[in-house]
């Protein structure tokens, strides 16, 4: 059996303060999705790999 997924900790004290501060500060900083320029090339490699595995 794999390692169980740990529960998300309940924040208290400094951790709770830091979390609130980060959330408040970041609200004005929109985040674009991270670019992934090689998707098309990887998709072609995956399709090729999958066909090879089928044989």
């Amino acid at each position, binding site marked *: 059996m794999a390692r169980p997924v*740990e529960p998300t900790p309940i924040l208290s004290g400094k951790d709770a303060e830091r979390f609130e501060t980060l959330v408040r500060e970041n609200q004005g900083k929109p985040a674009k*999705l991270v670019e992934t320029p090689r998707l098309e090339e990887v998709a072609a490699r995956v399709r090729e790999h999958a066909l090879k595995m089928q044989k």
Partner: protein
Amino acid sequence: MLSKCRNEMTFQEWSLTPVTDFCALSPFDCDEPDLNDYFQNDCQAQQAELLNVTYALTPCGGPFFPTALISLSNDAIRREKLEDGLRPTVSYPSYPAVKIGRLGVHKEFQRDGIGTHLVNMVKTLFVTNNRTGCRFVTVDAYNQENVLNFYQKNGFDFLTDKDISKPTRAMFFDLIRVIIPGIK
């Protein structure tokens, strides 16, 4: 009428679909024994118990090949009462979240942006057409430099320093920041 396709998503020629045939995951190998064990042996039983749902990322067209897998479950970021003088961002002591329990990319296709694309799709999935509110993505990340760097590159931050020497670390991403072209 319920739609079979509601939880499916296609984005830039890649498809993210909930896994229903777990035998189809047998070719998956991410070179990490604990993750392989989870996806080969544990995730099906956990899904049957409604604890999580595992999704497969595959390129559109061609035969099904689980290039990356991710298990998601409901979560919350909870905090105890703040010190006097610090006003909470919202008036709830608990923020709804979706948790990435485990995420793995097939060993042949690592460091090609597939994991990032998968995280992008999860962010998109949970800011569009949601049935319930979901403010954060949380993750129980392996405490390994490359894994933590991956999540940080994708905008995640640590929830606490108390888990700094534990095998996994809790991280979060605020979905309210996401900008998706053509959506908002």
